[in-house]
Every structure is written in C-alpha cells, then in structure tokens.
C-alpha cells in the first residue's frame, strides 16, 4: 500500500465534457505543493462522447512513469464502470457519483467505495446543462482535494490565475470546488491514507508537454519555415510554434512576421515545402505522425541523396496504418532509420521527456545544417501531449546556430570551381551554397544520378563515389549526435538498454530491481547512428535487455544491423499495447517474478 506523496489514481469520464481543465487543475495544484507529479491523458480518437481517462501519479522520489497500480479510480462514466472498477488495486478506493444509487457494476469486494453526489450538487448549484456538466469536473476535483489533502489555497490561486478577469466563471469554479470539497469532508473520511504533504521538490521544475517544448526548441534554434498537415498527436507542436512565433516574431508596428508557417494540403507537400525551404537556406521543419511518415518517404530519400538539411519531428503513435492514433508507441524506428527506397540512412534523436524535446529540437537544426540531411526527432504521444515535470528549460545567450558548411560569395571567389558534392574534408560533408549567392555558386540539385560537381551522371564510378560519401557522412554523424546516457550500479552484470520515453520506467525498474537484489546498469540511447559506447555497453554485460515500445523489437534490429551485435545477445522487453510503459513490465521481465513488485 502506498502512502504519503506516493500513490496513483485515475479518473474516468466522457470526452468533450470539459474534464481536461479539471485534470490540469489537479496536476498543477499538486505540483505547486512542491510534490512531483505526472499525468497521462488517455483519450479516444474522436471529439465527443467517448470514454476518456486521466491518470495521475504522485511520487516524492520523482518516479513519474505511468504507475502499474491504481490506488483509486474516480468513475464518472457509466459506460466504463466495469472496466474502471476492475482497475482498482486490491484494498484501493473507488469514488463515484452517488447522485444515483450505486450501480451494480461498481460493486466489488476488497475495495472501499466512496460516493459523492456530484451531479445532484451541481444541478442544485448551477443552471444550464452545459454549465452543470462542465462544473461537475471541478466539483470532483474539490472532493479529491479533500480526500488527498490538496491545499485549497493553491487551488484558489490557480483558479484566479486561470480565470482572472472572467469573474462569473471564476465564481462558478470557486463554488464548484467548494461544493466538492465540503461534500467530501462531510460524507467521507478525509484525508485518505495515501495523500499529499507539501514538500519542496518542484521549485526548479515546470510542467510542460513535449510538443510545446519542441516548438520552443525550434523557435530558439531559429527555425523560420514550418510546414505541416494536422495529425494527432503531432498537431499541437506546430500550434505551439505558431503561438510562440506570434508572440516573439511579429513586428509590433508593421505586423510583419519573421516566420512562415504553411498548413500544407498533405504530408507529401509538407515534406516538400520543408525540403524546398531547407535547400533555399531556411531552417525548416515539419511535424507529423504515423501515416505522415509513410507519405514522406519519397521526399526523405530525395533530401538524403541530394544533401538537403531538414528537420522532421515524428510524434509517434500506435501503428500500423491508422492504428490507434491516441495511443502511444515507438513503432517507427525502422521506417525512420531507413526511410525511402534505395540505400538510405537517417539520423534520429530520441528525446526521453519534454526537457530533451526542447534541447534535441535545437540540436536537430544544427545537425541538419552540419550534416546537410534530414534529421528526425522521434518523440511520441506520451511525451508530446502529456504534461511532464521537467527542469526549467534553459538557454545560453552566447550559443549561436551552427549552419555548417555554407560558402559565401567571398568564399566562392577564392575557388577555381565550386563542386557541390566534393568531400574536401573527408567527413562526407561537402560545402553548399544557397540560391541567390551569385558568383560561381549556382548548382543543379537533383534526385537522379549526380557526380561531385552536381552534374548528371549514369556512370557507375561517379555514382558509387557519391553514395560512398553519403555512407561516410553517416559514420561522421555518429560523432555529432548526443551520446548515450548511462546509469550504472556497481557490480551489475545486467544491462538495460532503452530509448526515449521508456526512460522513467526503466530507471524506476532499476531501483526496484535493486531492492530485489538485482543490480542493473541502464543505458539510454539518445540517437541513431549509434556510437561505439553503445556497443561497448552491450558487450560488457552478460545479459542485456532491450526495452522498447513496439512489437518487433525494432531498436534491437537497428543495434544488430548497425553495430553487429548478435540478436541473441539482446533480450527484448516489448510493450506495445499503446499505454506509457510502467516499471512493472520491466521488473517482471527481468526478475521473472510477477509477484510483490510495488508500483
């Protein structure tokens, strides 16, 4: 059983009924109390009327991966009562709307059932269907405040901040919170055994989602052209970028904009715009998910073969095909790494949380320019759309973008001839020019066979020279991308290799395994291509697990192909049901012991 500042609960509602703002209020009030907290929004792929859940985990030690066990479920959606009640841990709690008699689906031995008549209270307090529905969410938040010990002053402040001058709304919200709070205090034993106590573990942190953070990264990196086509869960990235540009990049007098955001007609066009802009010299990016990655394949091959910088954010979701667009996965590793027909390889960065989504977004633009090639930033729905607690984002004003090898008019004047694809430095990267430079700078870029002068060729030797250079360039990329992060436990001979958003769960699992006497080292890979450290780590552990969120162990495949690590040296731990990873999945797989693992 969990206790103070260490528990998890879930709220089941219907989407389109305004529960999102209540969920935010809940998260932020806990956060403001200085307590580490995370929230996972599990929403359907529709707009209104279907079941939706919100999971909150509180953990003083900062273990904020999805919890494996729920101490409480707030069941407000009759259509999922059966499912919801089953998810309460043995000995846990269920809170329901007791405006009506306890539905029999909710009856269950071994748990405590709490009722508050949210519906009735709101009907009494408010008028109008819409208002009543919306405020019911605030009312249950009030009850949770009482049950969990949320500081009502914090809630009040947050409400004031949110509704500021909208006095009527503000009043209604205050009322609703109170109604819920008072009813809980009156009807129930408050607080519960698991509850909150103020601490000071969040003061240098923020709550932010990865798409917003990535958008900020693009802003700070100086991206000027964004092209996109709406698709869940990547949409909010460009929406955030748009909002930031409007805030920071519009001339207050003329209204002129220092950016161009194009909502394209589809993902092919979004990729084309990005590549055209990158070729012309802008820092350009597109953001997409699943199907968009498939549709961008042809353009990715062109940019690879013609050495064009571009940044592709892939906010991964559950595939294949349309799949489950509102569920998370890491299923596009192969589709990104070798995107397009022909021999192609593309660098990928794997942020583990919104903080890294910010830094990697900025790095991606430098890498794209330095390597003159498409760079993927592979986030996922969980990172992209959920609010995570991360350290405040920081920026160093002395840092400037590295635009890579771009020849100016003066550079060109020094040259006898400009050869666009000549590998002067041996790193596989040839200097480029931008349209408009003049002088000897003009060249003709094409996706068909070309030689080092960018002239058309069908000659085997010239062709091979070019593609061999690209292979060299890819090796060079391994020296530029972020290195893996290691978390070592002395004496461990088990290695846990993971990627992206699995990080928190794996780190938690490392602790839990240690408690069981199982020592492990964790390596989180942060980029493709892999550095030699990755190989060394794997080779230096007797047993290695590769933990990822897809069915086919795609990270393991990449490790085999690129590093030559034998398949059987890596045991996959695969979690691909669409939910954020829990530590339990890892612990059970490693310890082989399903019992007794705390969440």
């Amino acid at each position: 059983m969990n206790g103070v500042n260490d528990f998890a609960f879930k709220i089941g509602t219907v989407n389109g009924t305004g529960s999102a703002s209540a969920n935010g209020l809940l998260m932020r009030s806990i956060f403001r109390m200085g307590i580490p907290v995370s929230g996972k929004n599990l929403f359907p792929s529709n707009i209104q009327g279907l079941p939706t859940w919100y999971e909150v985990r509180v953990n003083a030690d900062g273990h904020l991966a999805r919890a494996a066990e729920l101490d409480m479920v707030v069941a407000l959606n009759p259509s999922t009562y059966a499912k919801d009640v089953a998810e309460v841990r043995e000995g846990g709690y269920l809170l329901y709307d007791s405006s009506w008699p306890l539905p029999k689906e909710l009856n269950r031995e071994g748990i405590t059932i709490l009722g508050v008549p949210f519906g009735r209270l709101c009907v009494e307090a408010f008028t109008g269907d819409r208002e009543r529905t919306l405020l019911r969410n605030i009312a249950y938040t009030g009850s949770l405040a009482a049950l969990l010990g949320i500081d009502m002053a914090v809630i009040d402040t947050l409400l004031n901040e949110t509704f500021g001058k909208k006095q009527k709304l503000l009043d209604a919200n205050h009322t609703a919170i109170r109604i819920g709070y008072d009813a809980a205090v009156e009807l129930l034993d408050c607080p519960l055994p698991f509850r909150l106590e103020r601490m000071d573990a969040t003061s240098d942190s923020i709550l932010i989602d990865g798409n917003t953070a990535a958008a900020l990264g693009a802003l700070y990196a100086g991206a000027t052209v964004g092209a996109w086509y709406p698709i869940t869960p990547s949409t909010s990235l460009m929406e955030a970028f748009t909002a930031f540009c409007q805030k920071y990049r519009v001339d207050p007098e003329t209204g002129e904009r220092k950016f161009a955001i194009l909502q394209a007609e589809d993902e092919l066009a979004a990729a084309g715009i990005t590549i055209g802009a990158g070729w012309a010299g802008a820092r350009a990016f597109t953001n997409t998910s699943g199907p968009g990655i498939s549709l961008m394949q042809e353009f990715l091959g062109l940019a690879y073969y013609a050495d064009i910088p571009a940044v592709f954010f892939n906010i991964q979701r559950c595939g294949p095909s349309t799949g489950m667009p509102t569920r998370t996965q890491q299923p596009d590793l192969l589709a990104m790494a070798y995107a397009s027909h022909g021999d192609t390889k593309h660098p990928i960065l794997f942020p583990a949380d919104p903080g890294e989504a910010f830094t990697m977004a900025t790095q991606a633009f430098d890498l794209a320019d330095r390597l003159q090639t498409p760079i993927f930033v592979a986030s996922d729905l969980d990172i992209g759309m959920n609010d995570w607690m991360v350290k405040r984002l920081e920026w160093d004003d002395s840092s400037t973008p590295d635009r890579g090898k771009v020849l100016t008019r003066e550079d060109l004047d020094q040259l006898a001839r400009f050869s666009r694809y000549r590998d002067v430095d041996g790193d596989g990267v040839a200097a480029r020019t931008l349209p408009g430079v003049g002088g000897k700078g003009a060249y003709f870029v094409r996706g068909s066979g070309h030689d080092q002068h960018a002239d058309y060729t069908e000659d085997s030797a010239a062709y091979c020279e070019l593609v061999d250079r690209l292979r060299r360039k890819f090796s060079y990329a391994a020296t530029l991308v972020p290195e893996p992060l290691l978390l070592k436990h002395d004496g461990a001979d088990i290695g846990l290799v993971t990627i992206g958003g699995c990080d928190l769960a794996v780190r938690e699992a490392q602790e839990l395994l240690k408690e069981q006497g199982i020592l492990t080292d964790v390596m989180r890979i942060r980029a493709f291509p892999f550095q030699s450290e990755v190989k060394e780590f794997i080779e230096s552990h007797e047993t290695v697990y590769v933990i990822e969120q897809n069915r086919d162990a795609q990270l393991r495949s990449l490790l085999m192909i690129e590093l030559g690590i034998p398949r059987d040296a890596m045991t996959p731990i695969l979690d691909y049901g669409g939910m954020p990873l829990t530590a339990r999945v890892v612990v059970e797989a490693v310890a082989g012991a399903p019992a007794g693992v705390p969440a």
Partner: protein
Amino acid sequence: MTSIAKPVVAHPRLKTNALGLTLRDYEGGMSTLCAGCGHDSVTAAIVQATWELAIEPHRAAKMSGIGCSSKTTAYFLKQSHGFNSVHGRMPSVASGAAAANRSLSVIGISGDGDSLSIGLGQLSHAIRRNVNMLYIIENNGVYGLTKGQFSASADIGSKLKKGEVNEQPPIDPVLLALSVGATFVGRSFSGDKQQLVPIIKAAISHRGLALIDVISPCVTFNNHEGSTKSYKYTRDHDVEAVEADYIPVCEPIEITGLTGGSGAAGNGHAGNGHAGNGQAHTAEASSLRVVQLHDGGTVRLRSTEPGYDPTDRASAYQHISACQRRGEIATGLLFVDESSRSMHDVLKTTSTPLVDLTHDDLCPGTAALDKLMTRFR
C-alpha cells in the same frame, strides 16, 4: 552530350540587356531532349524573356519535377540554382523555397503528367496558396520520358502512335486553375515564341502564381496524325483569345496598339503568327485592358473575342470553355487578377527574406525564456 543537332537559340551576339548581359548568359546546358521537342522552344522563350526582363540570373531559382519537361530547367539560366525534385511534387518544393527567400524569382517548369496526373493536388494547392512564382506546364498530352503513355491532358479521341484512343475527358489546366482560384492564367504554344515571350514576362512580374499552359509537342510520341497535341493540330486549332504585351516599369505605356514597336528589349511583337482557323482578329472585336502589375510594370490585354474580359474570372472560364467546345484552343494571357493576395501577403512575411534574418532577429533569448517558464508552473 548529344550527337544530334538541336534547334539553336538564335541570338545576336553583341546585344546586351539592362544588366549588360547577353542572351548567352541566360542559356543553360546543352539539351538532351529529342531533336524538335517542343520543350526546347519553351526553353528558348524563357531565355529570351528573362534576358529581356534583365532578371539577375543568380536571383532566379529553377524548380521542376520529373519528366522530359522537368529536365528543361537545366537548359536555361545556368547561373541560377536549380532544383529538379521528384515527380509531381515540385509545387511544394517551390513553395518552400519561395517562403524561405522571397527575393528569389521562382521559375517552375513541369509537364502535363507531372502537374495534372500525379501532381494535380499540389498544383491546385499552390494555385490556391498563390505562391509567388511562374509555373509553366509544358503540355504534350503524354508522358514523354516514360515513352508516350496518355497523360491526364490527353483529349478524348486523341490517338497514340500504336492506335490506342483516349476515351477519358482531358483535364485542362487553364479551366482547372480558374476554378481553384488562379490569379494569372495563360496559354500558349511552344511554336509561337512571339506570343509566349511577353506572356512569360508578364507572368514573372505577377504577384502570386502565374500559370502558363504551353502546348509543347512531343515529336517522338505525340506528333502524328490523330494526335491533338501535335504541331500541326495545335497550329490549326490555336486561336489567340487574348493578346498580351508586357511593358516593364521603366518604359512608357503606349496604348496605341500591340503589334510592332513596343520597344521592349528587341522583342517587338511583330505581327500575329497564328494560323487560327479563319477567325478574324478584327480591331472591332477586340477590347484593350491595361493591368498594372505588382512590380510597377504593365500588361496590355486585347481580347479578340467580343465580351471576353480577361480580368473577369467567370468571363474567362466561359469563353475558354466555349472555345474548347468549338474544338479551338484558346491561347494568350487569358486571365489576370492583380488584386488577390499572394502567399507572402497572406503569410505577412517580413520584407527581409527569411533566410537573411539573423539569429538575433529570431531567437527570443534567455530573458524571454525565463519569463516564459512561469507559464509552465
């Protein structure tokens, strides 16, 4: 590269334009197209037009897709950057380049397969977006580069060499463009440089996307009897619906007539070379309109059909489709709308090209970030 003689672009060696450049400076690599290919004549017209306009070569960007037509960007303006992208998707690449650097004069070249089959969606959306660019379709009714299959512009009843007859209605880029909001639409014939050059000049000066459909016969696969995109067929059915002349900003506007002496750098629109089919281009039938272009230049439009107003979309549509029903190919600068907003107008892009903005222009810096962080608590 080629061992077969190509039609040579004729140019007086010594003549120079306002920048002191000769026609040669506007040429490109040697064509590898078939001898007699219509596309090479379009190339010559572009060379002529850009020379006359005295475009700074390095300020032009040549964009294309894939096809024989899309290769032609390699054959003009060798001092310009060029981008031969992927099949049917040039419009998006050009949109990106134009967005990134608004100081570029973007010249897009495509084919009927490239733009009307695989690329129809992108073309339509580039038109809708009114991307600042010239967009030429070298239209031959077939896929030349893949050896002559019908494209989407093939007319009903048109025959392939081996006898296959097309039974699907053609997609006419001019009608399509008008119906998705194009702001500049012309049509011409690769064999009629005198008509084509001024249209190209006006198109380059247009604010927004200027589409020119150029019937450009494929001598190898679609120039036989039974083809409706052959030299002969086009000559026989070409009817100039709107004569156009482009007058740059620096020259006086002379309302006194189109033919002869317009004085634009050596390109007098000397006489009407159209075979027509018996239609008289009488002065009575024609009406003159002068449209001020965004760059200050002017285009004079004289429609040869009564009632045709080339500044009125519905009128243009009406008359072009009437022509089509009569089996005629309406050519000329068929429609202009200088009032609509181009992509940059809609995006409100700053007048400095985005590529020229500095890090300081773009990065809000530490202080702003720190301040912003409070929003996320």
